[in-house]
């Protein structure tokens, strides 16, 4: 058994180098990468950049398929039910593999039992920013102001990591900033830029252009450490110790996918994330590259679910 396994791995590696190709080795036809969000969003962007290079590493094209809907649940569900042969894989996120399973009353899939982790690709920080007309410059000033007068924050939607970043903020700071959900990050940003709503929790990539131009004042990033691209913006954790949220993107295959196939996919993903072009794009995108092993991703999913469970419960978010 082990010899065939090694042989397959070797064949996979040979194919990856473009040296040989037999019907037995994975992959012998294009792989479909399901992106559970609409084209143009941040997950789509990460997915397409990675798919291109991963395809090159695998020696087979990776076809991107956007299956948006229900906050990522539809696409995740589709991959959960797909044949466990490695030809259908998912670009999972904090939403599909931690938040939705906690929030949804009807569970369309099990984030642990239905999937075989491949690799945690990137971590994407979120940011707390305000319209410059709001007279606060630090997280502490915001907390003080919020305790004196009613404020509201915009997010990309109900049950999104950004909504919950705000919920976690409220619960840790003892504030009651009202949540205003939007249909995506774009409309939320518009209203904050126009000062219709003073505060926003957003993905750092989508807000970074506005922060750099001064149209938004960033009060803090949600990661434990400061973001390399914005060394002057403190981490919220510097004011509220222990505060940490971020979005992430990771590859999953359906549960039951043979280990050698997972290994081949992981190898290709890790190779793709080391590609200089991908590194440069991810840096522009303020995303930090992880490129983990399958086991690390499995542990990460468990840790994320444990972290968000109390926040979701406290914020009383639930979707049917």
């Amino acid at each position, binding site marked *: 058994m082990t010899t065939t396994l090694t042989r397959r791995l070797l064949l996979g590696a040979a194919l990856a180098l473009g040296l040989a190709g037999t019907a037995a080795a994975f992959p012998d036809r294009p792989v479909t990468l399901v992106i559970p969000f*609409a*084209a*143009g*969003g*941040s997950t*789509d*962007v990460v997915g*397409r*950049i990675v798919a*291109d290079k991963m395809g090159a590493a695998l020696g087979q094209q990776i076809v*991107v*398929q*956007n*299956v*948006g*809907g*229900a*906050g990522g*649940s*539809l696409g995740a*569900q589709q991959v959960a039910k797909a044949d466990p042969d490695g030809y259908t894989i998912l670009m999972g996120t904090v939403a599909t593999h931690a938040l939705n399973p906690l*929030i949804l009353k009807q569970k*369309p899939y099990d984030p642990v039992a239905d999937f075989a982790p491949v690799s945690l690709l990137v971590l994407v920080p979120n940011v707390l920013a305000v319209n410059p007309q709001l007279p606060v410059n630090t997280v502490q000033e915001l907390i003080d102001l919020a305790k004196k007068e*009613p404020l*509201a924050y915009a997010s990309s*939607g*109900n*049950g999104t990591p950004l909504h919950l970043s705000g919920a976690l903020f409220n619960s840790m700071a003892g504030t009651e900033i*009202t949540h*205003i*959900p*939007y*249909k*995506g990050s*774009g*409309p939320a*940003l*518009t*209203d904050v*830029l*126009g*000062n*219709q*709503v003073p505060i926003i929790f957003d993905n750092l*990539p989508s807000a*970074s*252009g*506005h922060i*750099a*131009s001064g*149209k938004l004042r960033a009060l803090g990033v949600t990661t434990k450490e400061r973001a390399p691209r914005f060394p002057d913006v403190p981490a919220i954790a510097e004011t509220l110790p222990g505060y940490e949220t971020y979005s992430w993107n990771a590859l999953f295959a359906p549960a039951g996918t043979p280990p050698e196939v997972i290994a081949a996919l992981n190898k290709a993903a890790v190779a793709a994330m080391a590609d200089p072009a991908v590194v*440069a*794009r991810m840096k*522009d*995108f303020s995303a930090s590259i992880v490129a983990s092993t399958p086991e690390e991703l499995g542990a990460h999913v468990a840790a994320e679910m444990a972290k968000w469970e109390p926040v979701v419960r406290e914020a009383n*978010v*639930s*979707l*049917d």
Partner: protein
Amino acid sequence: MDLLNNLAMGFSVASSLANLLFCLIGVILGTLIGVLPGIGATATIAMLMPITFQLEPVSSLIMLAGIYYGAQYGGSTTAILINMPGESSSAVTAIDGYQMARKGKAGTALSVAALGSFFAGTVSTFLVALFAPPLTAVALKFGAAEYFSLMVLGLVMSVALAHGSVLKALAMVVLGLLLGIVGTDIYTGTPRFTMGITEYADGLNFVALAVGVFGIAEILRNLEDESDREVMTKNINRLFPTREEFREMIGPVLRGTGIGSVLGILPGGGAILASFASYTVEKKISKHPEEFGKGALAGVAGPESANNAGAQTSFIPLLTLGIPANPVMALMIGAMIIQGIVPGPNVVSEQPQLFWGIIASMWIGNLMLVVLNLPLIGLWVKLLSVPYYVLFPIIMAMCSIGVYSVASNTFDLYAVAFFGLLGYLMSKLRCEPAPLLLGFVLGPLLEENLRRAMILSRGDPSTFLTRPISLVILVMALAVLVLVFLPQIRKRRDEVFTESDA
């Protein structure tokens, strides 16, 4: 003379041989895919976007923009020829354009649409170049209260879309609003009217609705009696408008351009209203409002210009703020990020080549479209001589592919069948589909902004009156309401014994 310098730089970027070529390819591909029935601009861009990733950022966005105009133009062509709109804007074109086609004036309708679009595109491109930053500042003054009032104005105007009973048109708007609610409530996450089907959690697909109530209903109508009825007049007259028709289209084109340019700037869904608003205005000021719905030239010229102007000016929030005004623009943002451009206010200053290059290419793209499509009109019109029983199986195949390709959601295809049946039933009961469609696109925006405005004002409904822009729009809505109903009341008094209620 900054502007001239900038424009000159833009044109030098856009008119490099490679960029001209990509613009041309984009326009051609967009037209060819967009002209397939049931495949609108969003589906076309989603299909073609990956092709552009391999290119340089400027070339990639120029080609994508070309695909966008091309697809929009192609969509109008299908709306006119076979009553199959793939976008909310071309749904309005379908109302009178298709009637013109049935009267043998398909060529005129198509060339009016092309010329009107080109004119509108030219004017609004210059508007983008001249006023993008100040216009953005105005757009940002629109908050939830303003959008709510704007949507109310849109709803009031919708009544004028109907050419039959006003009462039934109102009922169709309300039915459309209810259908628009299907999906997840964004404030609480509660699913509404989804029957427990997760696939409808994001609402019903617009293309499925439009293809169903317009296109499939029309196919069924034509299949009612195949023996003694020809769908199209065989004697197709001239392809190009007469001098008189030219004169007739000037007013609508100018007004449509104005309306579309203004509404397109608003990132919160203003462009949706552009073609509907233009249609309403044209019908209201026309000396022959009874011709609307039966093939009025102004009913094609106005909305098509408004639509194209709105499409151009919706680039303003995209380019100056990095904010998408519609799903197509969201795709463009994705394309920018993939190309390593961080969208935001800095694009103008940090990437002037890109910014002005795209603006210049907008105009070039529009020029190419008109040059390409005027000769193609003859070809499109010839398609109508294909026997209908050959045409409609092709239509069904294409719209199945088109609807499925938007989100790979098979439930959207079931919705097509359902809405086909609904549309046919509506046509048998003489209820019109256009007000339904408007209600469908406005419904979610109306509710979303109403509830958001109420949360932001902490439950104070006077917010709609104390915010000046909102107040002005509401007064306008009231004025339209009076204009629509006053003649009717007067008419009712005069002709108590007639049965007309239109």
